[in-house]
């Protein structure tokens, strides 16, 4: 049995506390009114010699005034979105890590992998974050629907009413799919489905420990197969609903796969990091360097898979350069050059160079370094997907962004390691457990 070290527990509480303070700070310092934004813009333009303000003063006609007013309102919404978007990115990122680990776990069950059963309890520990994570996420979705923020443009008032100043023909055409009731029901169904599988699968796995036959194992096998079917459908729709709908004028067909690869590799990386942590503390004697090596191969392979999808999506749109599609990448490359290309470097070039060597795949400090790079890179990947449509060129990785990550990181550590104390770290009666204990590559 694992005992939650008090040091780690304190650490997670400190992270959560710092996170909450930072998130609060982010919301308090967000501009409250148009006047606040005017002062911010004025102080900014002083820096670069006249700029916006001087321009507006010179041409003091009605048209410039209207343009200026529209611009200020635009910036106002972006700055108001900032703390919300920061919270949203961190929240969905950590929730999807748990979901990625769950998908990996289900695949291990269905493929009857002989190497991984010694890691099942670690995987269940990582997926335990799914429940609290998805509840918080669902609350954020509901708050968005109740107009506490302007994250989703298609939710704004009057977007679908003809004659309204906000009327958007394109969004109105999609309102059969993008309307709040249908959207939130889909979210509820997906979250419920994933949590149900996670709950029952864990229950069966624990019951299998004390069973006299393999019936619980067989139940888990069938349930995992069904879950994977449900997962791939829900995952695809989830990516449209929760990420792609930030840009309701844009669409991409392989987007679901791309999002999947991003959080799947993050989930595997977290399984690896937790395994290495537990092993280094002496809790997992049966895990040998071959198990670590296998997980490293997955980190390596799925990183390349992510890159394949990232590039395929980018290159197809860049090549044909159709205006309605290409704005997605145009805005990202113009406004987010560091994070856009940085994600590619962190998620592909560094992992491929660090993990291509067989010996390196067993050296803990190299794997941990690669794992941290991968996780950081995929956070930035989600940042790239969500920020341009919510805060635009007002982005910055400052207090609200870092604090949100710290809060969810603290919560993640607390939930995962608490769950790990609840059951023995190695399943007893899994049909493949002996093979797994003697796995050698």
């Amino acid at each position, binding site marked *: 049995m694992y005992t939650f070290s008090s040091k780690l527990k304190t650490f997670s509480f400190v992270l959560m506390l710092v996170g909450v303070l930072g998130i609060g700070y982010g919301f308090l310092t967000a501009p409250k009114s148009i006047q606040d934004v005017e002062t911010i813009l004025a102080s900014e333009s002083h820096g670069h010699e006249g700029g916006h303000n001087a321009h507006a003063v010179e041409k003091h006609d009605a048209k410039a005034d209207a343009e200026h007013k529209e611009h200020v309102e635009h910036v106002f919404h972006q700055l108001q979105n900032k703390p919300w978007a920061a919270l949203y990115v961190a929240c969905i990122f950590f929730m999807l890590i748990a979901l990625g680990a769950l998908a990996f776990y289900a695949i291990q069950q269905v493929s009857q992998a002989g190497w991984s059963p010694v890691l099942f309890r670690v995987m269940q520990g990582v997926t335990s974050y799914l429940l609290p994570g998805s509840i918080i996420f669902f609350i954020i979705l509901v708050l968005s629907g109740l107009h506490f923020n302007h994250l989703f443009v298609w939710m704004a008032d009057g977007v679908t009413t003809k004659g309204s100043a906000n009327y958007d023909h394109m969004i109105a055409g999609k309102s059969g799919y993008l309307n709040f009731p249908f959207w939130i029901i889909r979210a509820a169904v997906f979250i419920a489905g994933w949590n149900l599988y996670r709950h029952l699968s864990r229950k069966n796995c624990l019951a299998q420990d004390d069973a006299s036959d393999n019936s619980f194992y067989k139940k888990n096998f069938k349930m995992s197969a069904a879950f994977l079917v449900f997962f791939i459908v829900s995952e695809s729709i989830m990516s449209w609903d929760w990420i792609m709908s930030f840009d309701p004028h844009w669409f991409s067909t392989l987007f679901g796969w791309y999002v999947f690869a991003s959080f799947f590799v993050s989930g595997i990386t977290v399984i690896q990091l937790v395994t290495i942590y537990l092993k280094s503390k002496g809790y997992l004697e049966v895990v040998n360097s071959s198990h670590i090596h296998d997980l490293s191969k997955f980190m390596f392979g799925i990183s390349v898979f992510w890159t394949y999808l990232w*590039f395929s999506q*980018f*290159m197809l749109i*860049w*090549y044909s*350069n159709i205006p309605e599609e290409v704005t997605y990448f145009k805005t990202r490359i113009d406004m987010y050059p560091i994070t856009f290309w940085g994600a590619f470097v962190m998620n592909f070039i560094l992992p491929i160079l660090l993990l*291509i060597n*067989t010996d390196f795949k067993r050296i803990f400090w190299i794997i941990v370094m690669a794992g941290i790079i991968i996780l950081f890179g995929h956070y930035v990947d989600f940042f790239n997907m969500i920020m341009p449509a919510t805060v635009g060129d007002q982005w910055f990785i400052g207090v609200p962004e870092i604090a949100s990550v710290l809060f969810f990181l603290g919560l993640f550590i607390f939930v995962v390691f608490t769950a790990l104390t609840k059951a023995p770290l190695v399943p007893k009666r899994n049909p493949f457990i002996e093979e797994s204990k003697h796995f050698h590559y």
Partner: protein
Amino acid sequence: MSSNKVIHAIYNDDDVLMDAVHKTRAAHHHIEEVFTPFPVHGLDKAMGIAPTRLAICAFIYGCIGLSVATTMMNYIMIQDWPQDIGGKPSFAYYQNMPAFIPVMFEMTVFFAAHLMVITFYMRSKLWPFKQAENPDVRTTDDHFLMEVSVNDNEAELVKFFEATGAVEVKVIDKH
């Protein structure tokens, strides 16, 4: 000369063979070669053979392939005749890079794969019309053969290998 003589110890089970290899190594007899009809897992480790460096070769070949592809396309598409083909920006290599990536990738894989295979053939001395070096036809079917050099200790060696479970121990004069 006695050094031309070798022992051929023949086994009909890979477990017995592995056991015999361990014993032979422990007794400090030099194993010249082991012939098996199929890969025996862990045999190289038991014989103490150094790990292969073929993967390192492949990595280097891949880098060469990547350089060839880059140099070729940079010369053809950017330096030599930078035409406007359908509005693609051919002012600099990086500007048109996404269009070159598929070729760069395939060339990397092509060089890595083919040069590595050729390296393997050369290092293992394998080519068409090569004279097969099979000491006993049964080793391609269901028998395992260990070849050990003899240094004036023929009787001792024969006795040793008979004790390791060999189904047949032969002393061969090698030319």
